[in-house]
């Protein structure tokens, strides 16, 4: 039983009210020069609406956010086995180079002559991405994975339109096991989703694809390795069949970490694939972003890559990189960009980090990344298979390999009253962020574990020991332990239903601060 303190704190874990409950309008943590009182040129549009933003001195601000930070789990604290998210170590050299004045303090619209180094970073990153993927072109501007999917699908759309089939080819095949962004993207790009039903072996079958092919098919969106953590064995034949039917192959590159440096998507017949720099190439997840989703394109789609593009000019024998920011600047090149994904040129801050990471690893290190990621996942499969059901892990005495993530389900523990969610919450009390829960949807009670290559063997063993101990606790019938979990996390289970029924999405003046603070302290 935890002793209740008078302050509501748990030792070093401090209860922390909202800035709005303790700050005030005249508090400030910046010292700016006093304005001169010049007559304004606002044309009568000076702010009349209340602002009412609390401010804090620097020490108070620091404490507030540091206290908040201590309520978070993070990769730097331990194994973060969140399947499909590739929570690998984020090297700090990346953070340092991204903050070089020559990268952080340059403006996207500076004259070209003053940003040659930035263009070289982009050009070099593009070279690495193209070489690793075996694809001829890359669009760097997409700002995250889903944005890259959109880029790829719009390139497909543009290619179809150029063939005069934009109106007739509307159907996009998406396996049932796909991540939700795939169907959402296909629809946002103006296509119709046709789902390929899941099979018992967790793979997409050529026959199922062929059965759906026709002159109205724009293409397929497939994830490889797929969301069950398996390499699609028929992927090349599926790609060939799609091409033969006149469609294109979009590959979701979310799981690229499993194959980087070992398999080139270009060798598998891929036409477009986004690469999450915040997964495979170690740029930090930052509590939900920012990401970056450069999208590699096949020769068939490359002409339709969006603006801006980097063009190499030679003036007086000197190689100079320039931006083509408008279609007219590409006249005579045969390129026909489908449009623009965002203002400016993409996530430069992620480009510098990813390039730093690539240079650090090199071709040999990146290959080792894929191998160790796959080895670590298979090691957990081998250790945990006797204790949890692995739907694709092979028969009892045989190891059917997974790629960089391993999928279990709750079928062995559910009859005893413990479900995936309970297992996840029990892991919180053990000091771990849980695996991905209930995804992919095609496996009931899915527990998807992705250790990544940056975990040492002893951390894998420690995690496996904890999982096994929990399985034994289930077998011992201690269901209550799971239903009450977490008890030791900064908070107990939170009421999602309450949050959704009466959404309270912001503080407002007049909110009962004292009442809320009391809640926080209780």
């Amino acid at each position, binding site marked *: 039983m935890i002793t209740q303190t008078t302050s509501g704190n748990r030792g070093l874990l401090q209860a922390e009210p909202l800035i709005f409950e303790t700050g005030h309008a005249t508090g400030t943590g910046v010292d700016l020069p006093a304005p001169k009182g010049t007559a304004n040129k606002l044309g009568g549009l000076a702010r009349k609406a209340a602002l009412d933003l609390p401010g804090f001195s620097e020490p108070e601000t620091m404490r507030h956010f540091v206290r908040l930070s201590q309520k978070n789990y993070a990769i730097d604290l331990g194994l973060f086995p969140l399947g499909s998210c590739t929570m690998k170590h984020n090297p700090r050299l990346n953070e340092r180079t991204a903050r070089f004045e020559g990268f952080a303090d340059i403006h996207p619209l500076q004259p070209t002559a003053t940003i040659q180094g930035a263009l070289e970073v982009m050009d070099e990153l593009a070279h690495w991405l193209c070489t690793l993927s075996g694809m001829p072109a890359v669009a760097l501007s997409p700002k995250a994975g889903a944005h890259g999917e959109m880029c790829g699908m719009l390139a497909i759309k543009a290619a179809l339109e150029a063939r005069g089939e934009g109106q007739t080819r509307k159907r996009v095949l998406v396996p049932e096991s796909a991540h939700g962004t795939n169907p959402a993207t296909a629809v946002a790009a103006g296509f119709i989703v046709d789902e390929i039903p899941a099979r018992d072996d967790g793979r997409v079958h050529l026959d199922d694809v062929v059965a759906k092919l026709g002159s109205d098919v724009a293409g397929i969106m497939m994830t490889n390795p797929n969301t069950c953590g398996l390499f699609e064995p028929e992927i090349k034949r599926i790609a060939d069949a799609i091409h033969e039917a006149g469609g294109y192959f979009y590959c979701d590159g979310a799981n690229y970490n499993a194959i980087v440096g070992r398999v080139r998507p270009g060798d598998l017949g891929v036409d477009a694939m986004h690469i999450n720099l915040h997964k495979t190439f170690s740029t930090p997840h930052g509590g939900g972003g920012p990401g970056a989703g450069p999208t590699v394109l096949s020769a068939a789609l490359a002409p339709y890559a969006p603006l801006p593009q980097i063009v190499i000019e030679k003036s007086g024998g000197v190689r100079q990189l320039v931006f083509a920011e408008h279609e007219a600047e590409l006249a005579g090149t045969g390129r026909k960009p489908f449009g623009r994904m965002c203002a400016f040129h993409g996530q430069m801050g992620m480009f510098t980090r990813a390039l730093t990471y690539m240079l650090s690893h090199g071709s040999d290190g990146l290959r080792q990344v894929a191998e160790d990621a796959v080895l670590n996942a298979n090691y957990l499969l081998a250790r945990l298979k006797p204790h949890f059901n692995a739907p694709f892990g092979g028969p009892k005495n045989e190891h059917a390999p997974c790629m960089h993530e391993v999928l279990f389900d709750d079928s062995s523990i559910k009859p005893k009253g413990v479900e995936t969610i309970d297992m996840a919450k029990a892991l919180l009390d053990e000091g771990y962020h849980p695996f991905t829960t209930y995804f992919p949807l095609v496996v009931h009670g899915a527990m998807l574990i992705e250790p990544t290559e940056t975990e040492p063997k002893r951390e894998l063993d420690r995690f496996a020991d904890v999982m096994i101990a929990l399985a034994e606790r289930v077998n011992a019938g201690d269901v209550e332990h799971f239903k009450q979990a977490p008890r030791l996390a900064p908070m107990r289970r939170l009421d*999602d*239903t309450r*949050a*959704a*029924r009466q959404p309270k999405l912001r503080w407002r003046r007049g909110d009962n601060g004292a009442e809320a603070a009391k809640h926080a302290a209780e």
Partner: protein
Amino acid sequence: MTTRYTKDHEWVRMEGDVAVVGITTYAAEQLGDVVYAELPAEGATFAQGADMAVVESAKTASDVYAPISGVIAGANDAIKNEKWEIINHSPQGEGWFVKIRPSNKAELDALMDEAAYANYVKGL
């Protein structure tokens, strides 16, 4: 009047000339605590099987399909007034969704009866 069921877990019961429609107890249990539902406007016409309404819990959302073709003759005020709990408390009673004026009553007969639906659910 007997209640009929669909494979998508809607129920239909004729009351006079109108069919009362809702989601089954099984569906409500699968969904969990309802946090939101969107019902169609009165007068809207739906073909059998068309998306007619949406019902959501905190973590999932489900489409509700028109079990039979017809015109919406009314919607449950309690749900319109955001008393979502009623859907969990009494899915096949007070938690009904809409009333449909059927355009083809024969469709009704083709749906499952209670025993067939119970059997269907058992097989899921």
